Structure formats: structure tokens, C-alpha cells
């Protein structure tokens, strides 16, 4: 059975630093008052317009394997195969911040408010990513409440489009989960609408299952490498 979850926007609110980082401004970069003001305004707009919603459904490793392999277009080899096979509890998810934020971004660009539009776009992307972090925490708590030992409940999210998992696998994921129930649809190109939506699987197990090296051929193409920081945190 699927579960629909309404997430409090305050739980996924992006911070200033992440929005600036998305625009190439690191901690040591100069930020004018004007640009800082736009960042703050973007966060305010995101808080006002975002309607974060998720749909989740637990799944066996065997059934997840069918989703993972999807249309057979994954990179071979890839790390997720090992992760899910060793995972103890799995759940597939899809989530969105809602269509209103994307509409506002388009409107801001159309009226020449480029900085605010770009900041809001960065805020929305960061907010969408934070939904998966929130879902990780929620799933871990659910498992602990069921009496699953702590050391079996390290939960990480994995998404199509990353780590060799081809985005076409979303077709099988959508078939299983039916995210249309929360307004997320999938195009033939495997693009999700609304744009600021995410999908994937939460895999829970001992921390070792999530540790892999970033030495796959496709790792070199990955601009963000979100896996590295969390794997490094597991190692220490």
C-alpha cells in the first residue's frame, strides 16, 4: 500500500549557503547586500509557494530488482545492485515541491527578475533534495519503532539518473508507485513533471552496504557526486 506524506516546508527549507553555492559562490566569495537580499527573498518565496508532498511504498529486494533493472539501460557494473541486494528494508518514493514554484521561476525570468528567478530555482532544487533527506530520517524512525536494531537502519536514498541507475527505470517505478496520485507524471523522455520532483528508493541496512568507491566510469561524468560526502561520513 502506498502512503502519501505531506512534508512541512520548514523541514526542507534551503539555507543561504546552499543557494549561493549553487550559483558558484563559495564560503569565501563576496556577496553584495543586493544579492544576499535576493537569496533571502527566494527562500521566503519558496516557503510561501512550495507544497512538498511524497508518496512511498515498501518493497521487497526481489521486487525492487525488477524496478532497478527497468528497461535494461543501467550502466554495468554499478554500485546500487550491491546496495539493494544487501539491504534489509527498502522503500520506493516519489516527491515534489509542487508546480507553483516552477511557475513562479518562469514568471520571474519573463519579467526580467533574473537574479531572484535563479535564486528561487536553486532554492527549489535544494528543497527537493532535502525531501529525500527528510524521507531517509522518517524511514529510519519507522524501522526503529518496529524494533529493528539501530545498526540495521542506516538509510540512504538512491535516485535514477545517478550512480549508473538509468532514468528510464522510472517507468517501472511509476508503474509500481503511481505518483500520479500526488500530481507527478512521467513523460516519454522520462522527465518528471512538475520539474522540481524526485524519485528513487530508500535502502536501509548496516552502514557497510552503502560504502563504495567513486571509481566507476560514469563517476567522472557526475558533476555533483552527492554520494562522496555521505559515504565519507559513514567511514568516520
Amino acid at each position, binding site marked *: 500500500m502506498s502512503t502519501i506524506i505531506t512534508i512541512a516546508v520548514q523541514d526542507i527549507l534551503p539555507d543561504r549557503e546552499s543557494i549561493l553555492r549553487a*550559483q*558558484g*559562490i563559495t564560503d569565501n566569495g563576496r556577496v553584495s547586500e543586493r544579492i544576499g537580499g535576493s537569496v533571502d527573498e527566494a527562500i521566503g518565496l519558496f516557503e510561501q509557494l512550495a507544497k512538498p508532498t511524497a508518496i512511498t511504498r515498501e518493497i521487497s529486494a526481489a521486487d525492487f530488482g525488477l524496478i532497478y533493472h527497468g528497461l535494461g539501460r543501467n550502466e554495468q557494473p554499478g554500485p546500487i545492485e550491491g546496495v539493494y541486494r544487501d539491504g534489509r528494508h527498502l522503500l520506493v518514493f516519489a516527491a515534489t515541491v509542487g508546480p507553483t514554484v516552477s511557475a513562479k521561476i518562469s514568471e520571474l525570468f519573463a519579467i*526580467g527578475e*533574473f537574479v531572484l528567478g535563479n535564486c528561487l530555482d536553486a532554492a527549489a532544487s535544494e528543497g527537493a533534495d532535502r525531501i529525500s533527506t527528510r524521507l531517509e530520517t522518517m524511514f529510519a524512525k519507522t524501522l526503529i519503532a518496529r524494533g529493528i536494531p539501530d545498526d540495521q537502519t542506516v538509510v540512504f536514498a538512491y535516485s535514477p539518473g545517478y550512480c549508473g541507475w538509468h532514468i528510464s527505470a522510472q517507468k517501472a517505478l511509476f508503474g509500481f508507485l503511481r505518483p500520479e496520485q500526488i500530481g507527478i507524471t512521467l513523460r516519454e*523522455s522520462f522527465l518528471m*513533471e512538475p520539474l522540481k520532483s524526485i524519485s528513487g528508493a530508500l535502502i536501509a541496512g548496516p552502514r557497510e552496504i552503502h560504502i563504495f568507491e567513486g571509481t566507476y566510469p560514469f563517476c567522472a561524468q557526475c558533476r555533483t557526486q552527492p554520494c562522496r560526502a555521505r559515504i565519507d561520513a559513514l567511514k568516520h
Partner: protein
Amino acid sequence: MELLKKIKESIYNGEDAEVRILTEQALADDIPPRRILDEGLIAGMTIVGGKFKAHEIFLPDVLLAAKAMYAGMDVLKPHFLKGGMPSKGKVVLGTVQGDLHDIGKNLVGIMLKGAGFHVIDLGNDVTPQRFVDTAVTEQASVIGLSALLTTTMPVMKQVVDLVHDRQLTGQIRVIIGGAPVTEKYARDIGADAYGFDGINAVECVEKLLKQV
């Protein structure tokens, strides 16, 4: 000329209201509109582009400068009667069929306009036929393609192939960009250039237009 220098500085500082006032003043002082455009507005954006490339300023600074430039161009537009605003060339821009991501494409469009190009933005989910038909109708020299998904990148090759099939190779150049796109991919599909960010896209388009 002091006024043109002030316009350049105001562009760099992203002061759109000031650019508007200074541009109006320059016109009132009988400075030719073309000179205001070239030596004030575009010259200011050229400095901005250089500073961005040198990592001295960042994307939001460039966007503020672009907004300031547009403010100046709005003042100048009515003063270019015949043939409209002069431009360095026409670029047809869009996100390819099946894809709706448009932020990167928008940023490239903003920077191309800021550099003095006439940009015809077709939006997103654009078919190969529409790209090429528009380029032909508008007599554009460059088609710029954006894709954010590996599944929509193949449409870029369809555009390149269509340009070739309609014997427009050399007359219309194709530049591609987007997160999953690489220089190698551009070479593999026969595109003329790959732009890794907005400023780089402007440089590439300028080089392409020298070849046409």
C-alpha cells in the same frame, strides 16, 4: 567619453535605473544610439564577461548586469527605426523536444543578448523541425540547443542531421550545452560547438559567426 564610461560602470555595478537615466542623457546629448550600444552597453557587458571568466564575480553579478543592460536597450530600441536594433547576429535558442528544463537555456539567452546578439528563444520541448525552420525563416546563423536529460540529448543529433539534410551545413552552425552534455558528445554528433556555461557559449557563438 565620460558618459559612455559611466554607462559601462553602471552596467558592471548592475545599476539598471542608473543605466536607464544615463542612456537617456546620452541620447539627449546627441551621442549616436549605435555608439551608446557598442561603447556603453555592450562594452560594459564585455567587462562583466571577462570578470566572470576570471572568477572575480559570480553568476548573480552577471545577471544584475544583464538586467541593467536590458534597461539601456529598452531606451535605445525606439531610436533604431529601420531594421531594428543592430546585432552581431541571430541565434535561435531552445530546449530540445521532450525536455522542459530551461534555466540554463535562459541564462545563455540572457548573456547572448547582453553581448549584442539577437536571440529568438523558442522555449522548451522544441522539435528539430521547428529549430531549423525558424533558423531559415529568421535567417539565423546559429542554433543553440539545451538538454538536461541523457534521454533528450539524442534530439540534438536530429537537429544536426536535419541541418545537414537540408544542405544548410556551414550556413547554420549548431552549438549545444546542458548538464549531461560534453565536448566529446558535441564532436560525436557533428555539432559545431559545445558551451559549458553562458559566458563560454557567447565566446563560442562569436567564434562560430566568424566562420559563417
